[in-house]
């Protein structure tokens, strides 16, 4: 049986390859429709494809003031707007409503600048075409943002002036505070200098007094020394004279002492010679001995030693002693009190001048993209119409092909040839699933190459919802084939069902355009889940995991469709 399935798949691919109309519908037709829809709706969604001059506005300048110039400059810088200058309101209204040359007419009333400059309310007047509702909303958003920019610009200028004045005053205060501080610093420095000078003066006085004293001392020392030297010399001379006399005396004494010893010796020898008569010899007169402690040197020592001591004592008395000079204290310079100048509060713009509340969109990379952002319309149209044409392909490839096989009789022949119906259905579904999957990949690749669509953070993740919707779509084709009796019945019914599913499911416009009840209803459609996954991946740039649930839901739809489709097809073709 697998052989039959495999052969059926091969046959299906052969049929698809030969079916030029089918191939056209698979690839070329979707790209053509995508291009038409994408370029048509680019203005609505904004983004890369909204070229300069996308919308035209007529402008009447009655103000001729700075505000008008600012508005005109802002409009001129807006890439999506082209301007027709109009002379008066009637002409502007005519341009918009009758001649349809502009989507919106903008009147800048007289004295708008004055009103703005004086803080009064000013309003622009717009002429619109009710038929061009979406374009008008888009332009009104742009104009609102431009007005906000102009108002914000004026407020910014006023705020800037106030801030500058505040800063000037603050500068003056700061300078005064700096001057006071400088004075304080100078006074402190002067006090410091005075104390230093006093100390220096004391030191100098001390030095001079000490020098004078030292000089006096030196002179006294010198005079005293000279006199003492003279006395010393006199004494020394006297001492020398005395010493000489003493030396003579000492020499005499020494000779006397020696004569004494010789007398003794002689007397002794005389007694010896007197023998027995020695005793009869009368004793010689005694010659006294020199006293043992006789120090003749000491007789000359007295006055010189005294003089030496006197010299030492006098010089010692002349030794320098610390001199304390107590200068009277210099009266302190009173401190200059701190000048307490309060800080001038910087004028805060949000407090001093009411600010302008605006907004800016931040893109997925965190970059600000202005007040009226958008996205590449093809990011929506490529997956949307890829899904739509995938379903159309399934209608033709599964539903009509099964009916054709039935009508041609090939189904009958296959069933008589040991190929049960399920092998044909399985082969056909598998082949169409593969073709649908490839179709999605080719259309996304074409969208990327031709229209610059975003493939998100993980392009490979796009294959997940693509496979899921291809599976659900092919299985849904089986249900349509089983439900329709003839080709003529299947075509309109299938087309209506597919178009409805695509529309409600958000394939052609963002699902958020739809009322809440319809969005709830859309949850029962595989197109909704497919678009949710594609939008998450391509436009919201979410992670690949964001496509898991929608893809799982669509695989679930596919399984349910397959069960019902096989049951219906067996009743229809079995």
């Amino acid at each position, binding site marked *: 049986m697998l*052989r*039959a399935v495999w*052969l059926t798949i*091969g*046959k299906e691919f*052969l*049929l698809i390859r*030969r*079916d030029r109309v089918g191939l056209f519908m698979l690839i070329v037709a979707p790209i053509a429709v995508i291009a038409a829809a994408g370029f048509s709706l680019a203005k609505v969604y904004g983004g890369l494809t909204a070229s300069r001059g996308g919308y035209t506005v007529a402008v009447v300048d009655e103000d001729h003031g700075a505000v008008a110039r600012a508005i005109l400059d802002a409009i001129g810088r807006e890439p999506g707007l082209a301007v027709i200058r109009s002379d008066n309101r009637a002409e502007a209204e005519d341009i918009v409503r009758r001649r349809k040359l502009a989507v919106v007419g903008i009147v800048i009333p007289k004295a708008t600048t004055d009103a703005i400059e004086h803080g009064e309310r000013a309003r622009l007047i717009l002429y619109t075409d009710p038929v061009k509702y979406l374009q008008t909303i888009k332009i009104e958003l742009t104009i609102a943002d431009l007005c906000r920019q102009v108002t914000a610009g004026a407020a910014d200028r006023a705020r800037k002036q106030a801030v500058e004045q505040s800063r000037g005053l603050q500068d003056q205060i700061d300078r005064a505070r700096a001057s006071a501080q400088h004075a304080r610093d100078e006074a402190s420095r002067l006090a410091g200098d005075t104390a230093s000078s006093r100390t220096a003066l004391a030191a100098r006085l001390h030095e001079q007094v000490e020098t004078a004293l030292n000089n006096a001392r030196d002179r006294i020392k010198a005079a005293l020394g000279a006199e003492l030297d003279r006395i010393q010399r006199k004494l020394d001379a006297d001492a020398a004279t005395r010493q000489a006399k003493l030396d003579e005396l000492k020499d005499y004494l020494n000779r006397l002492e020696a004569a004494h010893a010789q007398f003794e010796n002689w007397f002794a020898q005389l007694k010896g010679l007197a023998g027995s008569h020695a005793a009869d010899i009368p004793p010689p007169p005694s010659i006294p001995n020199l006293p043992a402690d006789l120090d003749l040197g000491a007789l000359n020592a007295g006055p010189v030693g005294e003089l030496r001591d006197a010299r030492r004592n006098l010089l010692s008395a002349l030794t320098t002693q610390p001199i304390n000079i107590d200068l009277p204290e210099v009266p302190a310079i009173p401190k200059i009190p701190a000048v307490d100048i309060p800080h001038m509060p910087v004028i805060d713009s949000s407090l001093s001048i009411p600010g302008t509340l605006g907004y800016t969109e931040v893109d997925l990379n965190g970059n600000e993209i202005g007040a009226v952002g958008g996205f590449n319309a093809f990011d929506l149209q490529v997956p949307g119409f890829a899904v739509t044409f995938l379903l159309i392909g399934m209608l033709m490839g599964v539903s009509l092909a099964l009916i054709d096989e039935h*009508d*041609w*009789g*090939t189904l*009958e*022949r*296959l*069933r*008589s*040839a*040991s*190929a049960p119906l399920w092998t044909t259905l399985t082969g056909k579904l598998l082949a169409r699933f593969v073709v649908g999957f490839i179709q999605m990949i080719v259309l996304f690749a074409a969208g990327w190459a031709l229209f610059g669509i975003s493939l998100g953070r993980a392009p490979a993740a796009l294959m997940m919802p693509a496979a899921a919707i291809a599976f659900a779509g092919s299985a849904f084709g089986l249900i349509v084939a089983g439900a329709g009796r003839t080709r003529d019945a299947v075509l309109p019914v299938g087309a209506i069902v597919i178009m409805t599913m695509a529309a409600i499911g958000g394939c052609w416009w963002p699902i958020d355009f739809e009322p809440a009840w319809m969005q709830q209803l859309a949850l029962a459609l595989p197109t909704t889940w497919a678009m949710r996954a594609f939008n998450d991946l391509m436009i919201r740039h979410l992670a690949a995991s964001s496509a898991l649930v929608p893809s799982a839901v669509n695989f679930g739809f596919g399984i349910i469709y397959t069960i019902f489709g096989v049951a219906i097809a067996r009743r229809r073709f079995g």
Partner: protein
Amino acid sequence: MTNSGPIIEAQDLRKRYGDRVAIDGVSIAVNAGEIVGLLGPNGAGKTTTLSMLSGVIAPDSGRVLIAGHDLAASPRRARMSLGLVPQSLALYPTLTALENLLFFGRMQGLSSRDALNRARGLLEEVGLSDRGDDLVGEFSGGMKRRLNLACGMLHFPAAIMLDEPTVGVDPQSRGRIFAVIESAADSGGAILYSTHYMEEAERLCNRIVLIDHGKIVAQGTDTELIALAGTEPRLEIVTKKALPRGWSNGIAGVSEITWEVLDEFAAALTLATLDQVPDVIRRAGEIGDEVVEFRVHRPNLQDAFLKLTGHALRDAL
């Protein structure tokens, strides 16, 4: 498995669609080498019978044996011996003739090589050997019919069922088709040939089964069946206005035959002799405003069918 009995055997087949009885107790047997014609008007039940015999639809009751295999009990074996040539052109118009043959041949279990060899042989047999690589959608009706026949005979089936295989074909294609069928029968194939062309049945079939309103009304050789209609010559007349019942009263040797013709004011009579033709034509012209067409012929299967069922094999003359 050797089967000495009929290759195609239907036993008391019955089929209802709601209250309508489509097939009511049909029993048919076709032996090897035999061509049996299933002859009846449109809506008689021929296609339904063949569908049940080929396993495309299941009978409410009854039994089908193909080469001895019960189609309900052993469908795979029975189908391997079965070749169906459906009334519709069961071909893929965007494939070439060769691609069609290869696909159906392989689906019947042939290897790629066998399928290719057999396909080339059959293209030769049906006179399409020079068109094998052309898309079937570009073929004439007769070429498609021949290819349709070839697709049903790729795998040398023992039992071949053909459902009006010559509808809308030119004489040349018809001749080719007959030749292939006769060749298959000569090779031992058991062939059940459904048609509402009595000439084809007379020309091709060994036996003929007349079927009407889901019932077999008679079966036998063409000679046996024609004999049921008698031997008098028949006159069929088409007039501008309808001829009322009894319009030929008074003309000796003439008896009206009641039949059903859907789109034309036509009448049929048996004649005792051909001498009565001028009188009958004149009377028909007077009553029916004008005689548009008339034909005198010997009794055939049409007459036999008319006699047995009271209405013509075909909707018109």
